[in-house]
């Protein structure tokens, strides 16, 4: 028995979310120029300041060059050959779910995200985004009773323009990088969360992103603001149909935590990864950053990345406030020809700031999985601490795992620890489980699950089992 091959077969299960919803879509013509941006802004009935924001970003973008420092090889995107706005034909957002096209509801049902009153998750509010628009947000009224705002970013732009103007682009500036600039110019939809002072958000918030059109770029934009002494836990999930072309997903996520506020942001990313020959799949080029603006604030990122042909993202924390805390927990599973270059940046500015990084990479097939992270301690960050742990697991002989930890400390009174390890699935561990009657497949799942448990423990309860299932799905076989 060739054990390696069998393990590889297990990690090569077909993608279950590859279906296309047959729905009439309104698309604007391909290509990008000022008029397209004006058209998007007009379609979304945006205020003047936002159009200006977009045009400024576009101007910056034109002067920027697509980065190539990551060493990721991919066929470059033809930005004039993309559609920048696609929406199911039901232009205006419906007041009630009964008015949403049943085909769309059915789509989300199939994805395991039921939206209708009877079936929806009991303690999770969901914002469902289909191509460029948000089609429904559940539990809005209930949340509003607590003063919590949870809606699509388009809606927020119209209804809470002051908040948007005050915060958008303050964590990720429009010229931050090539993809962030592009996103700032053309972003379509995404979620907006505002937790007022002193409020602990009464339920989990969640956004679910679905790409349906093949030639459409998805540029989602998420903004979460937690005022003083408030807290929120938010989760995003993503899937897409199987196309043999590469679709671009360039999102920007900004988080702002004021004094004593806490934001937990979790991602379960399962975009289509391309086929076993490496054809097709999503380019997931994302800028995610949180700012612990206030004292004793906390931002915690956790991510389970299993999809996309290429993942290129570094959810980061700017630890501005004294005694603030940043955390990053990541599982990245790559197979076939997938490439993941992911990690985090922890920028310590305030005194006694703390950060913790736990990254688990699992690479199978011919995939490449890299952890790339920066821990930077500024002269002002007296008494700061960082702990990083990066573990990689290799499956088979053709996968690769790399760790690039960058550490810059300009403050002698700081403490930085870094641990890294690389392992394979151990034959003895496998045999131990099997010799207790547990079949091979389930044993592999258990071991991988065990390898990732530090990160699973950080996911919100409701989603830890979902994420485990997602890994198991890629690994086919139930995980206990």
């Amino acid at each position, binding site marked *: 028995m060739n054990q390696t091959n069998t393990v590889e077969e297990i990690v090569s299960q077909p993608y279950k979310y590859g279906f296309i919803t047959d729905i009439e879509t309104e698309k604007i013509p391909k290509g990008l120029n000022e008029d397209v941006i004006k058209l998007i802004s007009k379609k979304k009935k945006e205020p003047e300041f936002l159009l200006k924001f977009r045009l400024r970003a576009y101007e910056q973008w034109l002067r920027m060059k697509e980065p190539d420092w990551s060493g990721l090889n991919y066929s470059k995107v033809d930005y004039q050959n993309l559609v920048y706005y696609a929406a199911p034909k039901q232009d205006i957002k419906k007041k009630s779910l009964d008015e949403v096209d049943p085909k769309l509801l059915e789509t989300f049902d199939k994805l395991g995200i039921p939206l209708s009153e009877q079936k929806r998750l009991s303690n999770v509010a969901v914002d469902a985004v289909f191509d460029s628009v948000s089609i429904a947000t559940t539990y809005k009224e209930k949340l509003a009773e607590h003063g919590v705002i949870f809606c699509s970013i388009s809606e927020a732009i119209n209804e809470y323009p002051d908040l948007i103007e005050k915060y958008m682009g303050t964590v990720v500036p429009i010229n931050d990088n090539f993809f962030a600039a592009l996103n700032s110019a053309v972003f379509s939809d995404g979620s907006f969360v505002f937790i007022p002072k002193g409020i602990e958000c009464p339920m989990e918030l969640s956004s679910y992103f679905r790409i349906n059109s093949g030639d459409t770029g998805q540029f989602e934009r998420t903004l979460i603001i937690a005022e003083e002494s408030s807290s929120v836990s938010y989760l995003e999930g993503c899937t897409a149909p199987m196309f043999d072309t590469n679709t671009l997903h360039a999102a920007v996520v900004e988080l702002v935590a004021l004094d004593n506020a806490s934001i937990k942001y979790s991602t379960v990313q399962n975009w289509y990864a391309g086929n076993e020959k490496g054809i097709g799949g999503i380019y997931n080029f994302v800028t995610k950053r949180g700012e612990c603006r206030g004292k004793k604030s906390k931002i915690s990122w956790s991510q389970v990345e299993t999809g996309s042909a290429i993942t290129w993202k570094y959810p980061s924390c700017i630890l501005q406030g004294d005694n603030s805390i940043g955390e990053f927990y990541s599982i990245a599973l790559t197979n076939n020809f997938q490439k993941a270059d992911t990690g985090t940046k922890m920028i310590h500015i305030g005194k006694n700031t703390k950060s913790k990084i736990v990254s688990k990479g699992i690479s199978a097939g011919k995939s490449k999985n890299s952890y790339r992270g920066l821990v930077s301690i500024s002269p002002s960050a007296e008494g700061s601490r960082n702990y990083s742990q990066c573990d990689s697991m290799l499956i088979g002989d053709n996968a690769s795992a790399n760790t690039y930890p960058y550490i810059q400390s300009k403050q002698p009174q700081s403490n930085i620890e870094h641990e890294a390890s690389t392992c394979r699935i151990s034959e003895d561990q496998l045999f131990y489980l*099997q*010799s207790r009657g547990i079949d091979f497949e389930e044993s592999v799942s258990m071991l991988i699950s065990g390898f990732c448990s530090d990160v699973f423990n950080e996911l919100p309860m409701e989603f830890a089992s979902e994420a485990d299932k997602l890994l198991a799905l890629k690994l086919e076989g139930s995980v206990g």
Partner: protein
Amino acid sequence: MNLSTPETILSIQDLHASVEDQQILYGVNLLIKEGEIHAIMGRNGSGKSTLSKVIAGHPAYKVLSGSINFKGTNILELAPEERARVGIFLGFQYPVEIPGVSNLEFLRVATNSRRKELLKNELDTFEFEDLVKERLKIVEMDPAFLERSVNEGFSGGEKKRNEILQMALLEPVISILDETDSGLDIDALRIVASGINKLSHPNSATILITHYQRLLNEITPDFVHIMADGKIIKTGNKELAIDLEKSGYDFIDKNTKDKELAK
């Protein structure tokens, strides 16, 4: 049931096996019937552990020739998990640590896979907790060990007790306990030995692989086999182990030399 003719549980004939292209077993023969306790002794490297791994189906060990029948069925083609499910249990000399996998959940999944084979209902988390708490008493183990990762950070003695706990849950037909006594202090040895005694059953059998008489003071074997160079070279009753303890393995060497000379 007719007690006068106990059924054969395990029959090993002329077994040759290798690991990493190095032959270790050179023709092992062994017959084990219901209700019997067999001890296998021998020097390090004589092939005792290899024999146990081959019976359990470790993929790194290759059977070159010979046969292993379990209750009349050839098991050489069975995967390790299939052997476990029909009732073959290997208690490891060095149980591996599996970080991140909950001991409780591992025990539950394992127990259910065996129960399924026995056509018993599978146990949910609550039912299983009741069962495991009862079985814990056999090895006098603290329930706190259930909450930890499989064997992670367990002391030598705790790992061995965890092995016997698994044996208690899986209710095997044949248990092969590979140096379960090694690294145990006197108290732990007594607990483990009494656990094994409590679990022995007229329809099951046990193979104890050991270096020391002290385990056999606690568990009385019906047969003692001595292995050398990949073969069982001598079989006797419990007295053989006592002789061995007195005179060491040299006494075997002398015996075999005498035999050769007699030829």
